[in-house]
């Protein structure tokens, strides 16, 4: 019944990296997306949606981190999402 070990990451570094990516990487990506959405659309309505959508998208991104086998790939995706929406936020604030 327990999962077959051969499919799981066996290095400690890899596992730690995945956990960090799942919790913090996903949080950064989610937050940056919602903030950019609030800047470019109606801030109050966007905030109201974020109240629940953040807590749906965050765990879904966690899923993505575990779906992708290499931790560095997940980090690349999450950090580039954060970066893109960060730039969009910056442009929107100008």
């Amino acid at each position, binding site marked *: *019944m*327990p*999962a*077959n070990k051969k*499919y*799981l990451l066996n290095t400690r570094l890899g596992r730690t990296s995945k956990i960090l990516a799942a919790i913090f990487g996903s*949080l950064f990506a989610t*937050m940056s997306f919602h*903030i950019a959405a*609030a*800047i470019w659309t109606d*801030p*109050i*309505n*966007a*905030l*109201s*949606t*974020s*109240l*629940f959508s*953040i*807590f*749906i998208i*965050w*765990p*879904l991104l*966690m*899923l993505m981190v*575990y*779906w992708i*086998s290499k931790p560095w790939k997940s980090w690349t995706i999450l950090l580039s999402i954060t970066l893109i929406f960060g730039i969009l*936020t910056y442009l929107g*604030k100008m």
Partner: protein
Amino acid sequence: MDNQKRNYNVFFNTHTVSGIVISIGLFVCFLAGGFALFLDEINYWQEGAKREVYTTDIDYDRVLSLVEEENYEMKGRSFFIGLREDIPDYIQVSSQALTMDSTKSKESVSSEDSLAHASIFLKINPDTYHIEAREFDRENKKLGTFLYHLHYFEQIPAVGIYLAGLVALFFSFALFTGIIVHWKKIVSNFFTFRLKSSIKNLWTDGHTALGVIGIPFQLMYAITGSFFGLIIILYLPFLVIVFDNDVNKLMEAFNPVYESDPNELYVDTGVTTNSLVSKAIGDFDPEGIERVSAQITDYGEPNAQLKVTTQLNDLKYFFGTTHTTYRMADGKLLNYKPVEENSYTEVATQTMAKLHFAQFGGYLIKAVYFLLALITCFVIVSGVMIWLTAREKKTYTHKAKFNRNVGAIYLGSCLGLYPAIALFFCLVKVFPMEIDHRFSIMSNIFFLFWLAFTIYAYFLKSPFKINKYALISASVLGFLVPVLNGLQSGLWLWKSWGMGYIDSFFIDVSWLAMSIITFWAAMVSKPVTKKPSMLKDKAIDQSFKEEPIKIRVNEPVLAANSLRK
């Protein structure tokens, strides 16, 4: 194909790990939260009090003059005035501290002055208009409220609610991974219940079938629970980046203020606050009103506004709030929000609160919620049991002792909560009233009992015994609840309904029923002596539906033990 296998194994592993990590916390959330759905009922039961009919007539002008007599600086203040449901009900007046005139130097500010500008909290008796308290009493003395606090770990200083939020967040992660793992067989497994097969199959079938039934309910709680627990992480980024560090701008999103033109000409006609409030609620059927409150902004200024919020009965309306805003000087209607028109923000926040607290549909919905909460508790415990049973194989013998200990602690702390809650219900009725710090002593006894049961479970080891002792102690204590209530308050089960003490009757009957079901469950649960096929007991088959959490958490280890022999 290999990729599919890999995904299955990875998600299976994350489902297991995230589930095990949050299991005890989640169990507490759902069991204590299930009881906390009946927070008001439990509080009224504890006090032996009758629920009063909610009164909408507060003399607002009298309340305001009472505040003025307290030597507070009134000009420019914003007030909240409303009746709070408590035992007995009271009128709450609250106001934030006024910002002091910045031209004055610190030395010239007298203590009298700073008192006049301080924040206000007054508790006023709605019958006599006496001020009963001048400070908000933070110390909780009610059992229902205690259980409500327990369900988000408020007893853990500072971080309790955030921990609960994280538990809810990982709960949604565990839900998503669970759905993925079971997706292929979600339909066929739903109709499978192998009672005659091995104990591990039984736990698995119970876990998946009841898990699938609970998905909508559990997903709702995972999302609303993370919202209530982790809302803080949204606050700072949104405040700094989106709202330019302006708190008022952010707050306006949730509590819009109607701006009136300061240059507009009007005559101060001296209308009373009372007449404005009764004008605002005049159109509604008084029996359909749940609660009324008044918010005053810039009191004493020419542009002072009165916002009357009327909450209508939640059996009729899902979003039953209306706001009516008047200018206080001449009573001009500035803004009116009808029941049917809700802003998106209001809909979003109110939906989450109403779903989370089951504030719609009355008792029936609360009962369904309670059953679903018990089902969720079963899903949590059965998940842990699958994990343990799967580790009762030969390949795990080097870890057998460790696994058994972990299992005993898990079961002890989960199942021990039920008798501990029953004990608390008994305690509030027998503990001497005159002792200082009565409630905190009682809550310490509650936590000690819970801890003691966990330690006892650790030494017992056998899941069958842990389960059986938890059930028997809970059923005995639960049976004592209505008896002790009758002895202490005289509101015996057979009298209280007729005398109109509905809450007392409801809690007593519920405990009696729970105690009987629990006792019966304890009696029918048997250790597995020979082989897992012994499980095809008819009684077990029925009891499974009745008592989702407590039944037969006992067999797996014993079954495995007997197999080893």
